């Protein structure tokens, strides 16, 4: 269950790649760059989709390390505790019909808000971690998640949707109250990672759906296939 020795180095490079992606994704938001030759939201959505898949992969490694750090039963594969103290976490699971009926704006807004909150919680996790290596991995993942948030903001900007404004005083914090035991805190950490993973799965589906909607009709492909018929 322990991560291999080579993984942190790979994580470093992935982290840097994620930073680069984040910077690239912010570029469409710059008005001076966005005025001329606007290719539409299609490429942005595709890249956001790719980023969610990449983050999903990155989280798998990080969660393994972190849950080992918490110890059993949190690192046991079939551990499925009730969602006791994690009620404030944005919930990714949603009824399928409801999910289908979401419009683009709502879909993107929900994603944006969820990751904004999750990122705050994740930074709290980063501060708690004891080992330097784990802190580094968490910091890399936070940077990547920040990139994803920027990417979603880019897509929303390209589609002309305003970014949701955070309500004052609702900034989520991870500071546990005095009655919050360490075991419950570990449960929260467990749920944070689990919810993050579910959100990344959902986002991949969200952006896949958006991608299909914004994709141009496949006339060129048809032509190409006809040409092959000869």
């Amino acid at each position, binding site marked *: 269950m322990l991560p291999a020795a080579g993984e942190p180095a790979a994580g470093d490079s992935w982290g840097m790649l994620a930073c680069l992606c984040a910077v690239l994704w912010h570029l469409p938001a710059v008005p001076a760059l966005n005025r001329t030759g606007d290719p539409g939201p299609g490429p942005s959505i595709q890249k956001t989709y790719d980023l969610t898949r990449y983050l999903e992969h990155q989280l798998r490694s990080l969660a393994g390390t972190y849950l080992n750090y918490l110890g059993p039963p949190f690192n046991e594969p079939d551990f499925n505790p*009730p969602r006791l103290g994690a009620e404030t976490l944005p919930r990714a699971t949603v009824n399928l019909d409801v999910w289908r009926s979401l419009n683009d704006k709502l879909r993107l807004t929900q994603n944006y808000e969820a990751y904004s909150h999750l990122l705050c919680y994740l930074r709290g996790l980063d501060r708690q971690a004891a080992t330097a290596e784990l802190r580094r991995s968490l910091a890399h993942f936070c940077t990547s998640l920040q990139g994803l948030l920027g990417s979603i903001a880019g897509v929303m900007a390209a589609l002309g949707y305003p970014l949701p404004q955070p309500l004052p005083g609702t900034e989520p914090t991870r500071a546990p109250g005095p009655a919050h*035991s*360490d075991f419950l805190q570990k449960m929260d950490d467990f749920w944070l990672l689990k919810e993050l993973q579910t959100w990344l799965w959902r986002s991949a589906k969200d952006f896949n759906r958006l991608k299909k909607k914004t994709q141009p009709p496949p006339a060129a492909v048809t032509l190409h296939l006809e040409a092959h018929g000869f």
Partner: protein
Amino acid sequence: MALFSAFQTTFLLALLSLKTYQSEVLSEPLSLAPESLEVSIDSARQCLHLQWSVHNLAYHQELKMVFQIEISRIKTSNVIWVENYSTTVKRNQVLRWSWESKLPLECAKHSVRMRGAVDDAQVPELRFWSNWTSWEEVDVQSSLGHDPLFVFPKDKLVEEGSNVTICYVSRSHQNNISCYLEGVRMHGEQLDPNVCVFHLKNVPFVRETGTNIYCKADQGDLIKGIVLFVSKVFEEPKDFSCETRDLKTLNCTWAPGSDAGLLTQLSQSYTLFESFSGKKTLCKHKSWCNWQVSPDSQEMYNFTLTAENYLRKRSVHLLFNLTHRVHPMAPFNVFVKNVSATNATMTWKVHSIGNYSTLLCQIELYGEGKVIQKQNVSVKVNGKHLMKKLEPSTEYAAQVRCANANHFWKWSEWTRRNFTTAEAAPSEAPDVWRNMKSVQGHCVVTLFWKPLSKLQANGKILFYNVVLENLDRPSTLKLLSIPAPANGTELTLDQCSYQIHVTANNSVGTSPASVIAVSGDPGNKEVEEERVKGTEDGFCLSWKPQPGGVTGYVVEWCERPGDPLCDLQWKNLGPNTTSTVVSSDAFRPGVRYNFRIYGISTERIPYLLEKKTGYSQELVPSDNPQVLMSNLTSYSFTLSWKDYAAESQPGFVQGYSLYLKSKAARCLPGSEKAVLSDDSICCKYKIDNPKQKTFVVENLQPASFYEFFLTPYTSVGEGPQGAFTKVTTPDEYSHILIRIILPMIFSILLIMILCYLKSQWMKEKCYPDIPDPYKSSVLSLIKSKENPRLTIMNVKDCIPDAIEVINKQEGTRKSLTETEPTKPTYLYLLPTEKSHSGPGPCICFENFTYNQAASDSVSCGHVPVTPKAQPSQLGLLTSSENGPKALGKNYVNSLGEIPAGETNLNYVSQLASPMCGDKSSLPTNPPEPALCSEYKTQMAIPMGLASPPSITLLDEGEHDH
């Protein structure tokens, strides 16, 4: 029993009242029961805090009392703890006592009660227990809330190896609860139906995030857990030590133990306590603390360092005398003075460590990175040390440190100074050598000298003085001053009898002179060169001792033999030396070094004694000779390689190896079989004489193919393998053949040329032209006579009217004259019934104009006349006008349809016949043989197709001879 109890109580109360009364009378407190008992809980520490007071004490009165405290669990009858607590009590003083429970307080209800008694010698009469207070109940469970499951203690912090008790409190009766420690199920004891207790013994440190303990219901997703933080054992500080540098401040240092290893680090505090002065200080740092030395000249110190964290307290002690713990400051005002070429004085000052104390100072002198002098000096305040036996013009470093001489504790830090000694005159004469050559009658002497070593130079050499003393005119001196760092000079002298003095000079003075003499004889007499074998250590050279007076020997060589600059080296040796080893890093393998050994006469004139040459390491030859082949015969050839420079090889060439390949299985005499690197087998001739540059390969086979390859060899091995040269020996008879064939070819050519030149004559003689009747001169004769009746008879114009059947005998030849008397038998071909019906086995067409004797086959042609063919033949022949035309066409066809192998029809061609042109005259005019002279067989026509029209085909333009 109850009655007895009631009586006893009444009695005691009465007694107490009596005592109270007495005490009041005696001004002493009497009612001394604990009152106002309050119990509070500290869940985290699992502690019960009790506080109470004793009211019935007089003002300012203090009594020693003992309180008995009982603690029961679950029910009051289950007393689990009884303790007597003694203390001094004042009136209305709030007394406190705490008890730590092994079991988390939430796990069970606890009850507390107490009673008191005076335990004071002043009032021995009051030594009896007061009444028990009422049970004070502590029930944390009731305030837990309505959760179905709880696990206690919450997030407890214990030290590694502790025993911990855990419990769960379940509010649900339906579910079975299972509890796990780090995923492993635990088994506990049921305290009551809702509470189960687990005892963990000797808990280990698992991880920094704590040990996870959780309980869950067998059904549903009910789960509750705690984290047990197990810290590593708090270690006591190590290496606790105190010292002073200035007798004003003590600096105490220690190494803290390892940390707790937990995510939430336990805060540690360090306290320093000095027992003699009773002072205490809280240290700000984790590993050191400063203590101000008291001005009242306290000498002895007894320190206690206490390290404390949440769980444990550790202490270490240190007792010492202050003067024994003096670590002096580094010396200051350190100078190196009066530096001469060989001496220098070092001075310094030290910080005082008391009025009567002495410091021991250590001085070290470093030269070229190594300690060369070490000295200890006792010092009060000022230190001084003279350093002797120094080398001139040399860099030194001197350093000093001090320690308490009376009670050594620690050396101070070093204080270091660098200095350079003054220069002195060079101590040694430069090592001088010369090279002489004669140029245009002048003697050119090149002087070389080696730079003086640092020890010899005693400073920076500024210039070299060269004094030339003419031996012929002793009073004549010539001085040359050559600035350093030159290591030689060239002198052109008009004559060669000079004594040369060379000195090196620095800023202080001059070195002793080095003397060398040159004379007219350069000393390069012809000496046989000897070979020496070099080793890794160099060349071991030896020479014969000289009988005469010799002041020394010089061995001279070039380190770069191929280079024009040569890099001349020499080695001076004493007069009694007859051998030396010349070694140099510049010696390379495969390079030939030449050594010359000179003896130095008493007049300081060098003369050549011996020459040596050798390689430090011999190598195999680098290249092979270019071999020329000559004198190739059927049995031998000669090889020569006279241009090969054996001297330039990287080893002494000891001979040559000749490899000869041939088809012969056996090697020739003088050679032996050898296997080449490519596993091919050949014969090898060994030429042992390195000066031999030719070789005759003999005993070869004529007309055979050979291949040879020649390579030199040194003591290490042979040269590189190269390509074999191919040679084929000539045939033994080839020269004879050449002597015959060449003239023959020449003769044939001559004949052919002659034939060509005389071709016309040859033609006439060998194959003359056959005359053509149409081009015959007879034709012109006919035309000139203008006789239209006279013409050349054409066969087609002839209408045969008679066939003469000749009984010709085979093999007989008859001349025209002989045939003449023979009367021919005529068969008339005119269309008569007789001739048709008459039998005719052979038809012969007779032409009297020809001589029948020309050919054997001329005489008769047998034409089988078939009844079928006749009508057409006759039909054609009857028409004289259409005949030639139609027959011309048939001829073409008939030529292509001649089947082979048919019966031949021979006929006689007429070349020229002025007699046969007239049809009408043919039968009437008998043949006249006088004019036609020759016969010729024209062609052979197959019998089947040789019909009469074919016979008449030949007309103008279709003659084919």
